[in-house]
């Protein structure tokens, strides 16, 4: 068999394997059986007739969307000899660095546990369960004493780890030479340059219409906006994931955004999904986890203080507390360089039958984690739908922003991409900021780790996240970060300290992201 044919066969086998366990498979089976009653299904041509029926009734489209979703999320099957950890992260030194970082987090969590004498998990007494159930829709009114809790880590701690990341096989000389990078990131990952970015983001070019630019009040809607909305409605009526993903590269109309994102992420609220969410809610009621306090603290510190998001405080608890209990999230660790923390039932240390992941979803929240959920509250008001959308966004994109990997959308690559773009296209600015001790990444890191949530105005943030979904990549975050520096370059050239540079870039709430991106990529003279 030719290599390409056997690769394709392997991909097909993997997708079939994954879909076999899904609800869609069961539904398709039921539909196929039910269709036997129909007059147009003949025994002689059973296979073709059923296929035709699926095509007409829209089930083939649902299957197409599911396959497309798998292709987007799961990496292609790697070489047969590659062990599972190679799929998580191919570079050995990055795996080791991620392992050390995780160990630090676990130590921090364990010491918090022993210092405060609070168990990792405890079953709630019946009285407490009743109370929580009554308060479920207004958990924000609760004011538990969280003063002793501290976040397990903040983005700046993570940045220090990334700065110290070194490839042992790389010439890391102390003396500055062509080998040392001028920025903070010292690992030689491959990142795109502007010609490659122009090709990758071709739909953002000057000759294509954009929502975020061509829908402003000065532009007559007949030029672009009306037609774009019409196409969006057609895409939704066809229920085609791939078309939606292509369409949203030019932005989503506000009225269609919630449905478009659900279509691209292949989320449809079935009764099973609502039931699953209710089951998670029951788990929250029955057990109290230490990470719950971390979530409370994070929401109180970040989203509750934000002018745009404080109204959604209760929703955030309802999503994040359930998220911690969701073991289906464990599936994403197959392609995440991180691994879920493990613990054992008390008294059964080392016995694998008594091993559990902690928290059940394997994700320990850090300072700012709730900001991944907050913007979604503008789009979805039904808790189980909001939950599903967030979960899918997390296992597709957000996890890459806080784990150490060589993936092009991983935070290390984004940092390197940002620094490289800045150095190449704004060398004077970069040099100046370095000289005054204000390495640009120290300022832009927090924007990228949070995917700009909490820094941009909400409508602008949603336009940005449209493009993350459309291109299935987080690289746009690094490009935007560089574009922001380019926009404020004149002011930045005049500052003489890191604090002053931070002040120039403290408020991004007035920025319009699409013009910035377009100018930086397509209209800057190099």
């Amino acid at each position, binding site marked *: 068999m030719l290599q390409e044919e056997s690769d394709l066969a392997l991909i097909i086998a993997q997708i079939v394997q994954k879909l076999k366990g899904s609800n869609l498979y069961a539904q398709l089976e039921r539909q196929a059986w039910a269709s036997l009653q129909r007059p147009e299904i003949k025994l002689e041509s059973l296979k073709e007739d059923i296929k035709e029926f699926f095509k007409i009734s829209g089930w083939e489209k649902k299957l197409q969307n599911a396959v497309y979703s798998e292709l987007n999320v799961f990496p292609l099957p790697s*070489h047969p*000899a590659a062990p599972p950890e190679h799929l998580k992260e191919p570079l050995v030194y990055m795996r080791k660095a991620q392992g050390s970082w995780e160990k630090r987090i*676990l130590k921090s969590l364990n010491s918090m546990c022993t210092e405060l004498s609070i168990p990792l998990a405890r079953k709630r007494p019946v009285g407490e369960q009743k109370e929580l159930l009554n308060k479920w829709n207004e958990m924000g009114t609760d004011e538990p004493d969280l003063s002793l809790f501290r976040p397990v880590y903040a983005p700046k701690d993570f940045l220090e780890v990334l700065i110290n990341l070194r490839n042992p096989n*790389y010439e890391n000389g102390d003396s500055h030479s062509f080998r040392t990078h001028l920025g903070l990131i010292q690992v030689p990952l491959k990142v795109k340059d502007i010609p490659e970015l122009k090709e990758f983001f071709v739909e953002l070019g000057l000759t294509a219409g954009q929502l975020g630019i061509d829908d402003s009040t000065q532009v007559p809607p007949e030029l672009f906006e009306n037609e774009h909305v019409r196409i969006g409605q057609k895409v939704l009526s066809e229920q085609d994931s791939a078309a939606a993903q292509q369409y949203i590269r030019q932005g989503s109309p506000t009225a269609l955004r919630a449905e478009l994102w659900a279509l691209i992420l292949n989320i449809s609220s079935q009764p099973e999904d609502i039931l699953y969410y209710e089951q998670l809610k029951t788990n929250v009621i029955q057990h109290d986890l230490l990470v719950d306090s971390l979530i409370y603290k994070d929401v109180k510190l970040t989203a509750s203080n934000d002018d745009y998001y404080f109204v959604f405080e209760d929703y955030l608890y309802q999503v994040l507390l359930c998220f911690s209990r969701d*073991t289906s999230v464990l599936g994403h660790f197959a392609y995440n360089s991180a691994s879920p923390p*493990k613990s054992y*039932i*008390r008294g059964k240390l080392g016995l694998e039958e*008594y091993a559990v992941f902690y928290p059940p979803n394997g994700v320990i929240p850090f300072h700012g984690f709730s900001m991944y959920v907050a913007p979604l509250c503008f789009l979805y008001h039904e808790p189980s739908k909001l939950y599903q959308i967030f979960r899918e966004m997390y296992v597709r994109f957000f996890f890459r922003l806080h784990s150490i990997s060589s993936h092009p959308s991983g935070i290390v690559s984004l940092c390197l991409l940002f620094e490289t773009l800045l150095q190449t296209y704004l060398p004077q600015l970069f040099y100046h900021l370095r000289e005054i001790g204000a390495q640009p990444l120290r300022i832009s890191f927090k924007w990228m780790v949070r995917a700009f949530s909490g820094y941009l105005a909400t409508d602008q943030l949603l336009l940005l996240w449209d493009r993350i979904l459309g291109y299935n990549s987080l690289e746009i975050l690094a490009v935007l970060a560089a574009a922001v520096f380019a926009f404020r370059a004149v002011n930045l050239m005049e500052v003489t300290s890191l604090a002053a540079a931070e002040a120039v870039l403290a408020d991004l709430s007035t920025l319009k992201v699409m013009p910035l991106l377009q100018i930086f990529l397509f209209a800057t003279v190099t």
Partner: protein
Amino acid sequence: MSRVSVPCHVKGTVALQVGDVRTSQGRPGVLVIDVTFPSVAPFELQEIMFKNYYTAFLTIRVRQHTSTHTPAKWVTCLRDYCLMPDPHSEEGAQEYVSLFKHQMLCDMGKVLELRLILRQPSPLWLSFTVEELQIYQQGPKSPSMTFPKWLSHPVPCEQPAPLLEVDGCYDLNLLSYT
């Protein structure tokens, strides 16, 4: 078609460098690895598999058994195969690679010896090589193919309900470091 591993002897890598290896400043950019097959008759090569470690380009030369009495000559069967699209960056640096018979420039019917010529033109890396080298010949024709590990150990499908307790208990020890 199945494949059978051929036991091979991988000789130590030899650096090709102008001048004295000890005193010169630069690093060699070319390494040669000889692979011999003692106690195996000339065989038909099916597949070469290895794990890359920062090698950018690979050339393979082969010496085959000839029926006539002329001495066997070295022939290039793979020329400058690119393992790292950008030799200065990490892409492809630690990947698992398989090279098949149909990718070779010549017929690989009666292999006696192989010579792998590794090139890494970038001065950024301290060392480069290929690891876990395995050579395969064609096995007896059987319907089974070599499947990757995950096909026999499928990823568990969506769980019906989240598991929180083991035997009704969720009283945990501290988190363990493995």
